[in-house]
């Protein structure tokens, strides 16, 4: 008898424990969910506060439109936003593309040539101390009102982070890794493609992500100074018409552009580059 009750007792304890683990698991999952979406929750909460506070404060729509009003406006003006967004997107991609096309070879020259490093690197750092935005009016003066000054500005802003992060990425390689592949008979070309480049990719992509965000700023600033199209231009238009809702809609479109480009790069990185600590 005692044995049986003892036995059933232990079963009871086990099921109790089983329930507890299920509860604990559920709790854990909820915690994971809240962690993953905490930023979203916060954003929604802030927007809700904004939505409720505007009518309460008695501010007119010309001063501060509500999030819903902005969202509705975006939905209604999608073709307009897209037509200007294309222009800005093109300027950003062209500027960033030039940054990559010139920045990567420049980084390689700086990395491989001591003379080049000594001559060009300090110059590049000095150049970086110039606020590029201040160049916008000058660029308009030389390059006119079209795409050229915006692309140039986006390029100038993008170049530095690309070059710095690529050079640092290449230089921070463990020298022993180079010895290892050389001991296997690798030439410099093989060393570069098998070791130097893959090891530098996380750094390079870090630079790319900073650069693309800055390119958006460059292009929009270029449009502020002088333009006939683009999201920056649309914003100025909205401003002069006291159309604050459209103004905010443009801001949202500019942010969306920057964030999308950032995540596209992030996605490409996840396909081509492995982070040091991630298992996969």
């Amino acid at each position, binding site marked *: 008898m005692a044995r049986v009750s003892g036995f059933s007792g232990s079963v009871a304890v086990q099921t109790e424990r089983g329930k507890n683990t299920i509860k604990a698991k559920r709790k854990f999952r909820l915690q994971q969910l809240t962690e993953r979406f905490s930023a979203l929750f916060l954003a929604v909460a802030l927007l809700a506060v904004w939505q409720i506070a505007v009518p309460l404060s008695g501010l007119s729509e010309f001063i501060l439109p509500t999030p819903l009003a902005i969202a509705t406006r975006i939905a209604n003006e999608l073709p307009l936003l897209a037509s200007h967004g294309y222009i800005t997107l093109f300027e950003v991609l062209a500027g960033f593309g030039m940054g990559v096309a010139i920045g990567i070879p420049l980084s390689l020259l700086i990395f491989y040539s001591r003379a080049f490093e000594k001559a060009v690197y300090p110059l590049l750092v000095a150049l970086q101390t110039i606020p590029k935005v201040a160049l916008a009016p000058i660029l308009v003066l030389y390059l006119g009102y079209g795409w050229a000054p915006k692309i140039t500005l986006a390029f100038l802003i993008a170049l530095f982070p690309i070059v710095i992060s690529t050079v640092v990425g290449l230089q921070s390689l*463990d020298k*022993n*890794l180079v*010895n*290892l*592949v*050389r*001991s*296997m*008979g*690798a030439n410099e070309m*093989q060393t570069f493609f*098998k*070791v130097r480049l*893959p*090891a530098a*990719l996380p750094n390079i992509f870090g630079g790319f992500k900073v650069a693309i965000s800055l390119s958006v700023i460059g292009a929009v600033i270029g449009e502020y100074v002088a333009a006939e199209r683009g999201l920056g231009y649309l914003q100025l238009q909205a401003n002069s018409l006291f159309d604050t809702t459209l103004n905010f809609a443009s801001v949202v479109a500019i942010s969306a552009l920057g964030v999308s480009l950032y995540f596209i790069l992030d996605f490409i990185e996840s396909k081509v*580059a*492995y982070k*040091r*600590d*991630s*298992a*996969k």
Partner: protein
Amino acid sequence: MSAVSPTIGAEVDIAQLTKIYHTRESEDVLALDAIDLKIERGSFVAVVGPSGCGKSTLLSLLAGLTPISDGQITIDSERVAKPHSKIGVVFQSDLLLYWRTVIENILLPIEIKGLDVKKYAAKAEELLKQVGLAGFGKKYPSELSGGMRQRVAICRALIQEPGLLLMDEPFGALDALTREQMIMDLQTMWVRLGNTVLFITHGIDEAVFLADRVIVMSPRPGRIDLDLKVDMPRPRQWSRVHEDPIFHGYVRQIREIFEAKGILVAH
């Protein structure tokens, strides 16, 4: 049947080998001073010496990574001037490429030499099995422990059946237990494969345990102070060897040299 066939160990002849490092900042460094050393085919030679005595330099010269200042090295009567396909190298850190799987890391030398990677894949698996890592081929280095990673590095060095295996303090970064196991396993592997091994270490006990010969080097400029033949039957058992007075005799002989040079201070 094992896919890994025994290798013919290489014969190494080092004659009047000298290395001077010329540096921009400071004076020239005489790292190795006219070293003479002949290594028989298939023998296991350990090199011990204090830090900075030129052990890594010796390895680097053998591997053809650093230009020789004077003297010469021949491996199977071929003069070493540049990296050589008869040599496999294992460094202190595993130097696995973290973006490649274990198998891809082991096959790196094959890829670099432009050989058929598919032909060597089975052999890579076989080597993994021999080091107790069967089935780990698709894992990434970050999923392995330090000891496992160094085992993979050893597989990578052995994939081309090198006549000469160079090891530069390969177990220096491992914890004591893992190190002991690795030492035992290296012996087993070497007995089976028969490569010539040059094993650099600062551990006197592991040098005596593993080697047929222990070369004791003096501090800068690097010279050979003692060439000690270790005469103990194989396979040697770590715990048993440590109870053997003959083993302790060898260890003492090496320690006495270090004490005489002031590298170890006796109290």
